[in-house]
């Protein structure tokens, strides 16, 4: 019976990135995926004829360009189109636009506050300084502060030196970013509520926190660290939907000789004498591998796929304590025509970007209060995009795909499981909020896909529907991610590795966890990794 050099559990983007790097290092790699398609939460599916949805993740920015280059993704069809702007529609019938052009951006803010319009530059400088500080850490393995190994000490020294190189003012700013709420942080710069609401968005997307929760300033950085072709902080659409990212990865993997098996759900990781030996599929098939890499989240991997007795208690305790509460849902809508937003001029570039309808920090925070009480938000925060305004491949001319990311949606409704009726009621909050700003919106709807945390967990396999495979709070970042002592992609079982977003540097379609895990595996195998680019310089 064949023994693979490596078996990757899960064909999400990180699993595929990992598999690609291992395969390119000369290993014989198998990816097993439970669905009949690969992609995990980066997929494009046609659920109604003529419309392609980005079913889960919907925008691209964080995906590391080093990985795109190493794995030749453009050759396999990946193209990212930066989008043009965005807007927060306000209750008074106006809107606050975001424009790519700096002067337009300033003039737009000046409509609300001349002061805020100019403060923006200082704000942007401070955020940029922090991103430059943190970005180089994305493609490095976090050190274990409890270790005396030269490599860990060296890495700690590197972090210490990086911090020591900052000016005292920058250090203070760094500490603020790590500990403040985005709302308090923005209060130090801006005076206009809608402008603060506009910037709060990046502080809460994907989190189980509200804009007034400490720690959300860091989450904002997490969303600002990406780029579209060198334009740092820019976001774009993957042409063909987010599935295009994983399609390109799968094609790259297969072109280098890798094997993908879909419709193959892993039930258990085979463990013998503390060593991973392969996987058992749902049907009972056993597949053997010299090593196993799990793209599943840390809870799924160690509480479902591995027998409890194989794992040390401390580790299990920490895995159980890992916070992975889902907080978001997704409503994908096929439209037979472009929706109208009377507030926005018809020629506004903001329509070719992200639209929002929560015009105050308080509304966003109140949406979070609902989540804490175990309810979906009555007045949710929506991140709405119509990628078909820039991407002709997802729907016929004149037809549109609208992606609505919805926050907050709890993993359980007041302690019980979601029902179909809950799901429909949840979707109704979304449609009705949009319809408030877009007359005739309901009539344009051809088809709708609604994903609550229940659907996200069931299909993609993300525990509790958490899109980051674990919350992005300080206790779960860097050397604490996913759990202290195992933040270097290895696990207590020899031969079993982690490569999902549960690991450093966390969620978003970034690919860094998959790549970093591959680097650690190759290091353990003493294989060269010169096909792996170093992180791009931050100059």
């Amino acid at each position, binding site marked *: 019976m064949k023994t693979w050099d490596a078996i990757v559990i899960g064909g999400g983007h990180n699993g595929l990135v990992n598999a690609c790097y291992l395969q390119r290092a000369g290993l014989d790699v198998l990816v097993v995926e439970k669905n009949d398609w690969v992609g995990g939460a980066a997929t494009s599916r046609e659920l109604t004829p003529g419309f392609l949805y980005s079913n889960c993740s919907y925008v691209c920015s964080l995906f590391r360009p080093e990985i795109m280059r190493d794995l030749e993704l453009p050759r396999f069809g990946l193209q990212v189109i930066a989008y043009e702007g965005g807007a927060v529609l306000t209750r008074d019938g106006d809107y606050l636009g975001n424009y790519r052009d700096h002067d337009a951006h300033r003039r737009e803010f000046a409509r609300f506050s001349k002061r805020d319009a100019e403060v923006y530059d200082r704000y942007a400088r401070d955020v940029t300084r922090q991103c430059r500080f943190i970005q180089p850490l994305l493609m490095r393995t976090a050190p274990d502060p409890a270790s005396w190994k030269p490599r860990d000490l060296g890495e700690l020294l590197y972090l210490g030196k990086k911090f020591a190189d900052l000016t005292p003012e920058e250090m203070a700013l760094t500490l603020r970013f790590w500990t403040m709420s985005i709302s308090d942080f923005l209060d130090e710069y801006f005076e206009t509520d809608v402008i603060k609401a506009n910037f709060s968005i990046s502080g809460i997307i994907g989190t189980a926190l509200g804009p007034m929760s*400490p720690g959300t300033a860091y989450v904002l950085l997490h969303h600002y660290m990406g780029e579209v072709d060198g334009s740092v902080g820019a976001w774009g659409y993957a042409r063909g939907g987010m599935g295009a990212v994983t399609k390109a990865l799968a094609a790259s993997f297969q072109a280098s000789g890798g094997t993908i098996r879909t419709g193959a759900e892993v039930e258990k990781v085979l463990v013998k004498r503390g060593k991973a030996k392969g996987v058992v599929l749902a049907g009972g098939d056993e597949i053997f591998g010299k090593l196993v890499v799990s793209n599943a989240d840390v809870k799924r991997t160690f509480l479902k796929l591995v027998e409890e007795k194989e794992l040390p208690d401390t580790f299990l305790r920490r895995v159980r304590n890992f916070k992975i509460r889902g907080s978001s849902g997704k409503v994908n809508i096929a439209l037979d025509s472009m929706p109208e937003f009377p507030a926005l001029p018809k020629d506004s570039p903001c329509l070719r970007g992200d639209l929002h309808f929560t015009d105050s920090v308080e509304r966003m925070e109140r949406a979070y209060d609902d989540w804490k009480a175990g309810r979906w938000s009555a007045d949710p925060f929506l991140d709405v995009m119509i990628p078909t305004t820039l991407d002709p491949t997802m729907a016929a001319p004149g037809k549109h795909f609208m992606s609505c990311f919805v926050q907050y949606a709890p993993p359980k409704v007041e302690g019980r499981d979601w029902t179909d009726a809950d799901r429909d009621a949840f979707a109704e909050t979304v449609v009705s909020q949009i319809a408030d700003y877009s007359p005739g919106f309901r009539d344009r709807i051809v088809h709708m896909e609604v994903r609550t945390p229940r659907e996200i967990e069931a299909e993609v396999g993300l525990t509790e529907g958490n899109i980051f495979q674990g919350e992005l709070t300080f*206790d779960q970042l860097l050397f604490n991610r996913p759990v202290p002592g195992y933040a270097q992609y290895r696990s207590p079982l020899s031969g079993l590795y982690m490569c999902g977003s549960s690991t450093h540097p966390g969620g978003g379609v970034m690919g860094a966890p998959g790549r970093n895990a591959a680097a650690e595996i190759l290091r353990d195998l003493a294989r060269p990794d010169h096909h792996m680019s170093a992180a791009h310089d931050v100059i």
Partner: protein
Amino acid sequence: MTSFDRAKWDVVVIGGGHNGLVCAALLAKSGRRVLVLEADAEVGGSARTEEFFPGFRASTAHLLNRLHSEVVRALDLKRHGLELSRRPPTPNPSPQGGGGLGGAATTSLMEAARPESLSPLRGGVRSGGISGSTFAPSVALSKNGNPLTLHGAYGEALAGATPAEQSAWKDLRAQLLRYAAILKPFLSRRPPQLGGGSFGDMAALGQAALAVKRLGREDMRDFLRVLLMNVYDLLDEQLTDDRLKGLLAFDAVLGSHLGPRSPTSLLGLYYRLTGESGGAPGAQIVPKGGLGAVVAAIRTAAEHAGVAIRTGAPVAKIVVEKGRAVGVALANGEEIRAGTVVSAINPATTFLALVGAPLLDTGFVRKVKAIRMKGDVAKLNLALDGVPGFAGVEAADLRGRLVIAPSADHVESAFNPAKYGEFSPEPVMEIVLPSLTDPSLAPTGSCVLSANVQYAPYALKEGWETGKPKLLAAVMAQLEAHAPDIGKLVRHAELLTPADIEARYRMPGGHWHHGELQADQMLFSRPVSGWSGYDTPVEGLFLAGAGSHPGGGISGAPGLNAARRILAERRKA
């Protein structure tokens, strides 16, 4: 004013709160001629004991749980009349649990607190502490007469919980105390300066790092994980009893604008546990004579050291000449010159009102204005005709601290409205009946109830004029739910909203800590980054109040650290 005056005072201290007095006393002890200026008729700030209704007295701060041992020692407070209240023999006296001081005592107390040996201890573990003084228990009240009590120093023994919960609490308590102990040395020193890297700073950080390493590998990892965590999740991981979780969650957030689910809220609990009484971390005392007696002892110590105190002397201005503070001007126009000016009042008041923004750099003014200091705690003083009964609480425990915080979720829900300038219909609070410990605070047979009510946002949207009666009604309803007859006993009720506290004690925002005590406003960021070391951009002007590191509470630590800084500066010069 005149050269004679200049020669007269080396130091003028603005504000006769406990920190101002501590700082003044230490400076005077080292030979400085020190004058303390207090705006009110009496020193002590919010720790002073005042009559709020004929025959009834209370202090706004009502518990002693963090008076720093170095302050007690340096000022020799015991010699100056600090009498930490001892509990008179209880009707059902119980054996002294353990004794002595320090780690060994804690261990033996923990032994005594084992479930099997608990029942005889109901009514309170008697801790060693200072010459056998008694620590006040904390009672988590419950509506159905089933309270839970933390005895001894912050729950050395836990009464009213299941054995499993007691054992879980024992572990958690030990863990929290271990971790708090690592942070504790920072209380009594100047915060390490960012980018400064002095030898002392490096040594302090090195020692902390070593202490972390000494925890052992796994404990160290847990320490680093939970450091900036929220208290809610940590409690959820380790405990199951809602009452206990509610109490701990309440303690973590009391006095701050955070809910238990807010990341970093665990720091509030650490802050509490870095405090100590009688050498026992986390222990609290209801002092005889109220907090005012503590202030009196500090005042006596200060005067003994030669400090001159002028009350009723509000400072209107800090006089600055060529970038240097040279004295103060009083509201009545009188100018008092001194080589060093120490401000033990709020930093924002100090800089924006007394120095004035024109004399300060703009970036600094921005930072000062950005200090978050909107208080969330209201103070309730009730004059009662008798001692109220709280459902299920033993008489002895009434001398402790009674907390209404039925669950961590409840505390969080109470926090929600505060974010939007509203208060919860079901506020959470801690209650003390100080007249039980010190009968002089109320006429015979009567009783004083002193409660801190969280969350009462300073900037109430509807305004306090209409909001205050509504809050009082909500508070009384909560009280009556736990002490059914209390309504009938009330002779007088005084509710101080944060706005009232601001006006009465000249504390902007009515904030006890003179600035939110949250991670981004601690240590090197307190009161503002770049100026966390008690000195200020104005040469000769120093800060010594709770707005500086380590923060508020009746600790004296800011005053202690400031005095040391001033003395060190002088040595250098």
